[in-house]
Structures are given as C-alpha cells and as structure tokens.
C-alpha cells in the first residue's frame, strides 16, 4: 500500500509526470508571480496606498474599467445576436462567419491595434465619416472602447453558442402557442435560460479587456489622465524606474482580475447546482 495521497494504479509514470509538472509550474509561474507579491510586501501600507490612489492612477482605473465595461456590454448585445444567428439560422457564409468570430484570438494584438487605428483615424474608412459629426474615434476614450470591444467579442459568442444550442425549441413553441409574442418569448423564456452563459461571457470579456494592452495603445493616443489605460501606466512607471509604483498598481489589477475569474467560477458552480436541483 502506498500513501493515501494517490490511489493505486497499474499505469506507470505518475512520479515523473507529476514531478515534472510541479517543477515546471513552480519555475515558470509560481516563483515569478510570487515575486510580484513579495516585492509589494516591501512597501509600507501608506506607500502602497499612495501609489495606487494617486490622481493619474485613479484616472487610468476610471478609463480602463469604464471602457472595459462598455465594451463588454456592447459584446453582450451583439455577441448574443451573432451567437443566435450562428446557431438558429442557416444562411450562406455561416461557417465562414463562425470561424471568423475567433479572429481577435488569432490576430496578434499589435496588428489589430494598428488596423483599428487606421480605420478609425481622421482619414480612415470609418473615421472620415465620424469626423464631420464631431465624433473623434481614434485617440480618444471612444477608441479604447472600440479596441476593447474588438478583443472581447469571441468570449461572449463562444460561451453563448452551446447554451443556445441546448435551448429547447419546444419551450418557445409552447410560449408562442400560449399567446406570447416574440418579445415576450425572448424575455421570459430564452433570456432566463441562457443568462448564466451570457453573464459568464460578459465577465470573461470584461476580465480580458481590463488587462489588454496591444490593441489599445495605438488607438488610444495615451494622454496621461485622459486616454491612458492602467497597463500603459505600469509600463510608463517601469520606464521611469519607479518599480515600487509599477508593482503596486500591478498587484491591484492582478487581484481584481483574480476576483473576477473566481466569481465566474462561483457563478457557474451556483448555476449548475441550481440546474441539478430543477432536474
């Protein structure tokens, strides 16, 4: 009998594979990540607080969180629409459209950054029509929203697609035959069922947007206090050799994104428990 740590198995290779996994994980991920927290622990609380609440930093939080929230909300609406069309309707080009949804994953962020900037700048394909309307898309907070919408789209579509596939058409037909119109069927029958997936997709897009750097820096214009996102501020502090400031802000952002991902897991667990109880 071996220890109770592991159940007995005839398959070999447990020691070496787990050992290697733990070693590699520790060297590449755990030790470097712990550096961030240990370096922060060297700061006194007052210093830390000063670093993370200075006006320029707070302005960057406001922009980053605000734009991420708006981007995720836009994606929740249009991502739902796209997922719905892909699952429910058959039309020419559907497969191509389905594959194209992942483009923001596959396209390097710097590439999408310069592409979006070119389109939305004053003389760009879309920017030139916005300019006469008094809308400045590139080099403004709106540009940040555009970039964050771009990178968040696949998260919403990909989490919603399986949920919409699982929807029972019978429930909608029953609602319709009981006299509900399309809008009522949507609000009362469809939305409550796919809501967990929608919320998860929204949260994933939001979490990704918070840390995004590459696609934003080109289109934002990077004016301190106005269009400077938190990720860029961390880099700026590093370039000024303000390691303490960079580290403190990084810890705040890291803790926030951990908290969001944790709440996504809790949410999914909670919904799955609820579903099991109903079934």
């Amino acid at each position, binding site marked *: 009998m071996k220890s109770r*740590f*592991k*159940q007995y198995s005839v*398959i070999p*290779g*447990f020691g070496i*594979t787990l050992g*290697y*996994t733990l070693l*590699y*994980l520790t060297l*590449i*991920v755990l030790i*470097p*990540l712990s*550096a*961030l927290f240990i370096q922060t622990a060297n700061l006194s609380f007052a210093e830390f607080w000063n670093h993370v609440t200075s006006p320029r930093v707070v302005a960057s939080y406001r922009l980053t969180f605000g734009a991420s929230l708006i981007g995720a909300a836009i994606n929740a609406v*249009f991502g739902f*629409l*796209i997922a*719905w*069309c892909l699952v*429910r*309707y058959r039309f020419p*080009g559907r497969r191509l*459209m389905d*594959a*194209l*949804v992942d*483009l*923001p*994953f*596959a*396209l*390097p*962020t*710097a*590439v999408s950054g*310069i*592409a*979006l900037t*070119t389109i939305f700048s004053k003389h*760009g394909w879309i920017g030139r029509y916005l300019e006469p309307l008094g809308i400045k898309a590139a080099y403004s907070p709106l540009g940040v929203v555009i970039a964050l919408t*771009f990178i968040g789209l696949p998260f919403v579509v990909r989490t919603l697609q399986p949920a919409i596939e699982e929807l029972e058409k019978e429930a909608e037909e029953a609602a*319709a*035959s009981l*006299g509900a119109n*399309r809008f009522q069927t949507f609000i009362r029958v469809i939305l409550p069922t796919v809501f967990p997936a929608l919320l998860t997709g929204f949260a994933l897009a939001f979490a990704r947007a918070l*840390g995004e750097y*590459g696609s934003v820096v080109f289109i934002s214009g990077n004016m301190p206090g106005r269009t400077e996102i938190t*990720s860029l501020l961390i*880099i700026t502090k*590093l370039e000024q050799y303000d*390691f303490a400031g*960079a*580290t403190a802000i*990084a810890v705040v952002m*890291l803790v926030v*994104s951990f908290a969001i*991902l944790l709440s996504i897991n809790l949410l999914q667990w909670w919904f799955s428990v609820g579903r099991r109880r109903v079934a």
Partner: protein
Amino acid sequence: MSPLQETQRLKNQTTLPNTVQTTVLKPTAKFIDLLSSLVPGFLITLAVGFMTLFLVLPLAVIFIEAFKLGIVEYFKSFQDPSAWHAIKLTLIATGISLPLNLVFGIAAAWAIAKFEFVGKSVLITLIDLPFAVSPIISGLIFVLMFGLQGWFGAWLAERDLQIIFAVPGIVLATIFVTFPFVARELIPLMQEQGSDEEQAAISLGATGWQSFYYITLPNIKWAVLYGVILCNARAMGEFGAVSVVSGHIRGKTNTVPLHIEILYNEYNVVAAFAMASLLALMGLVTLALKTFLEWKVQQDRNTTLEPTLAEVH
C-alpha cells in the same frame, strides 16, 4: 395603430389556438406573419454588419495598407535587415517555448487524467493561472526577478549575464504567456477518455511508454495539434509581455510585433503593415486549422466515448 399595439390587442383578444386565430383575424395576422418572416433576415443583417465593421474591415485594411504603394514596395519592406532579425527572433522565441510547453502539457495531462490524487483541482487551477495574468504583468514579473533592481539582478550583473532587455527575457515571457495552451486542451479530453485502454495495454504486458505511444497518442493527436496551433499563434503575436522585457533594441531584441510598433510610430506605414500582413496571414492559417481540428477533436471525443472496453468489466 402601431404594430406593437396591434400585437398586444391580438394577444388580449384571443385565447384560441393559433390556427383559429389566423382565420378570424386575417389581415392583421398576415401582417404579423410578414413581420415575423422578416425577423431572421433583419437579425442576420445586423450580425453580419457588426462583424464586418469590427472583424472584416480590420483584416482587410492590413492587406490594403501593406500593398498601397504596390507589390514592389511591399517586398522592399523585408529588405531591411532589422525586419529579418525580428522575424528570426520571433521564430527563436516560438521555437523554444512551443516544445517546452508541449512536453509540459502532455506530462501534466498524463498525471492529472490517468491518476487520482489529492489536490488535483488546485493543480488544474494553477496551470490556468497565466491566462488570468495580463500581458504587462506577465512581463513585469520577470523584470522583478531578473531586472537590475530585481531578486537576481545584482548576481547576474556581477557575472555579466543579461536576461532582461535580452533574448532570454523574451523567451521566458513567451513561455509564460503560452504556458497553459497545450495542457488545457489535453486535460479535459484525456479525463473524458479515462485510463481503461492504457490499463488493458499494461496488463497485456506493454510498457508505460508503449501504452502512451500506441494507445494514448493516437487518441489525443488532434487535440495536441490544436493546442500547439493556439500556442504558436500566441507566441508569435505576443506584444505586451515581450514589450516589457525587450528593451526595444532595433535589430537585437525586437520581435515582429515590436518591430511593427516601431515602424508604425515612425510613420513607415507600408513597412509596418507589410510586417503585420505576415502575422495576419499566420492568424488566418491558425483560424483555418483551428476550425478543421475542432471537427477532428470532436470525432475523437465521439469515437472514444462509445463503450468499447467498459463492457468487459
């Protein structure tokens, strides 16, 4: 009367089954039928419009800008030695991080999927950790370790070794951001597949290595490839993390995405988009392979889920 009020009135009036309703209120019902038949077309148009605006246009603009001054100018962009150097460095960083994360992914998936042990779910969470860390922070942690003010900074400086603002830092940052890709594809698939087939092979006298090579590998090969493709795309395209550790020394520590940034900021638009077109092409190939492999992995899932060995027990 607006269509909305009309529907409301319709709904209030009738508790009769649908068929009766259409015969009784023919004109309005026809109108609603017409509206309903227009809904899918309207939704699809809206969805396609949004995707064109946010996905197709950015993709198109890359190639149009790259070829704006003709094909000669496009290829001229690659004559710059620093462009070649950037391509070489990107290939080096990818070439190192890919096999490392592949071996790790297979080892981790083997340990997690084939055995039952305490703390497994914690281990899975820890493996996913790099995905929760933003690109800038992924670079920053290596600066905190190996930078001049970092943990090993003084030690490295004494020995004249450089990791940050040099190639090793770029490789480390790339390994970190692509760390979970292969593992997170393999773990759920191999857990689903279980270990019955390997157990049978072992009890028939196969060695562990043989059972991996002849049993496990054929079952997971498409998923391995899928993970590698995604890992490759991210490794070649990583910008934020690499940007922090690179130091942006032209012709020395610039990867392709960093070189694009420099060219773009110098208003060398054609050259910037020419480099970008390479990465965009890589992205498109990734998408195509990904779509194909998703179909293949799904096939693997379906065939292995059929109870073949389960009946023996």
